[in-house]
């Protein structure tokens, strides 16, 4: 891609992102606040702004993680919730909800966010252990599926034992951006900068993988070590996003597809655009969730699932008609 084309597309995505954040600050389920000065400052700066920035950052983290997952596993249906991170996070949240009544100090300290992050981390770790390492992508994917099923079963057991927790767990499963605080925004911003920086530096390894694993190895790349780093980034980005927003569907899967044609073939550009695309998709969905049936808000995960699912259907139809995705 020519440099000026890249800059033009990047500027477009950044401007669109900024407009969405601004809209997110002005619009809410209680109505629009077109005048900053005359509006409730707490509502704008302590609720809507962190929520909008947080939704954008969570989407960006999921978009980046989705892009990494699809490139690393060379599979267009790979998403960040593979490798057991989603079911691990869900189990983490269920465990905290289930056992806090016992009065464990460490459980209270950990909180729901910490529980989700720790659960996601344990889920990925268990997948890695079951796969016997990270060298065999197919074995790792299968291990992720197995761990997801096992942790999902454990989670079902919790809801069976404590049916009163069903609604809270369901809310986590549908995703929620209403409770994102400034501290959550800070955590996600730091994680995003770190993950994006490292990913962009080592992205040539993903380009080389498009020629096949063996050819990539003969180009002198430390493939095993870089694969481990990318899995670490995938887990960190997913864990941070899930801990703040719950399990938001389709963003990680759809964002890389949304930008693929715009970005071209180079992974450095694809992953950067996938990150921005994820942010745009989630924040747009959040705006729709807030305003579509205002003053009632619908879960943002429902909107992302509908938007992402619809887009993938269109993509599938175009592909089946001979067009390239």
């Amino acid at each position, binding site marked *: 891609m020519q440099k000026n084309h890249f800059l033009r597309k990047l500027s477009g995505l950044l401007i669109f992102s900024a407009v969405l954040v601004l809209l997110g600050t002005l619009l809410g389920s209680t109505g629009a606040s077109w005048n900053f000065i005359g509006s409730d400052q707490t509502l704008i700066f302590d609720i809507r702004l962190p929520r909008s920035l947080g939704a954008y950052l969570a989407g960006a983290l999921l978009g980046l993680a989705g892009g990494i997952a699809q*490139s690393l596993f060379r599979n267009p249906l790979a998403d960040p919730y593979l490798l057991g991170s989603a079911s691990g996070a869900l189990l983490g949240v269920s465990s905290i909800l289930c056992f806090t009544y016992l009065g464990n100090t460490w459980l209270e300290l950990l909180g729901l966010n910490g529980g989700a992050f720790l659960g996601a981390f344990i889920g990925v770790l268990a997948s890695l252990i079951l796969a016997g390492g990270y060298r065999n992508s197919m074995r790792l994917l299968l291990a992720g599926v197995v761990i997801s099923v096992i942790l999902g079963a454990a989670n079902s057991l919790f809801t069976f034992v404590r049916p009163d927790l069903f609604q809270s767990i369901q809310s986590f499963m549908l995703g929620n951006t209403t409770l994102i605080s400034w501290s959550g925004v800070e955590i996600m911003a730091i994680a995003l900068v770190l993950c994006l920086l490292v990913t962009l530096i080592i992205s040539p390894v993903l380009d080389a993988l498009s020629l*096949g694993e063996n050819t990539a190895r*003969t180009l*002198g790349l430390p493939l095993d070590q870089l694969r481990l780093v990318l899995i670490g980034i995938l887990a960190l980005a997913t864990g941070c996003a899930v801990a703040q927003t719950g399990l938001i569907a389709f963003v990680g899967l759809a964002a890389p597809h949304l930008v*693929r044609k715009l970005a071209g073939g180079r992974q450095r550009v694809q992953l950067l655009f996938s990150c921005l695309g994820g942010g745009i998709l989630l924040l747009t969905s959040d705006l729709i969730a807030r305003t579509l049936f205002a003053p009632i808000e619908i879960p943002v995960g429902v909107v992302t699932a509908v938007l992402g699912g619809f887009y993938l259907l269109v993509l599938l139809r175009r592909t089946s008609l001979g067009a*390239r995705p």
Partner: protein
Amino acid sequence: MKTYQLNVYQGPCAVLSDLNLDIPRGKWTSIVGPNGAGKSSLLQAIVGLLKWDGSITMNGVDLSTFANKDLAKKIAWLDQGSSSATDELGDSLSVYETVMLGRLPHQGWLHLPSESDHSSVKKSLQQTDAWHLRDRPLQQLSGGERQRVLLARLLAVDSDILLMDEPLANLDPPHQADVLQWQDNLLGQGKTLVTVLHEIHLALRADYVIMLNKGKLHFQGSSQDPATHQALIALFDGRIRLEKLGSDWIALPN
């Protein structure tokens, strides 16, 4: 390049054993043998894709002492069937970007491609008659066009030794002739070429022939040596005969 008591393993099984080979420097060596003889495995062992023991030396230095990146600068490898492989992901680098991947062993993580990288990519694409394809996505090319691009990727590494597994596969006769021509150019630059070939008549155009059978060395020698021809006929159980056509040898079924 020499190997001494080389054993190559795929998992726990030895696919090649006790190979003592002498691959002459600055010459073209072809490797022939029936299916499953271990031809591709030999190339994969040299570039570090398969485990081996014994010794492989290049100019007297054991290959196991090279760091990955140094080995990648010295030996380039073209995979068998890579031109027909399709990527499930559907996204595709452009031809130019694909050939630039050949420069990865020469680049640092934080460096953009240098002028010398760009000129090497351009030269490689021109050599394989693929410069006009430079902006096309790799996945949209025909098998033959893609093979020329992958050969350009191999050239872009600018290594002393080029290992090629079926480099002429998918190419039409004019482009096969082009590849043979640029192979001559590379030999003129002092490069060492090692190719796995199924076409006996093309293999006999090399300077040196190595014959493998069932994981063992059957014979090695000059392609013009009558003893090599006899060994080749024996390798295929006498089911072929060799005839001279002009300056070339051709293999015909008996």
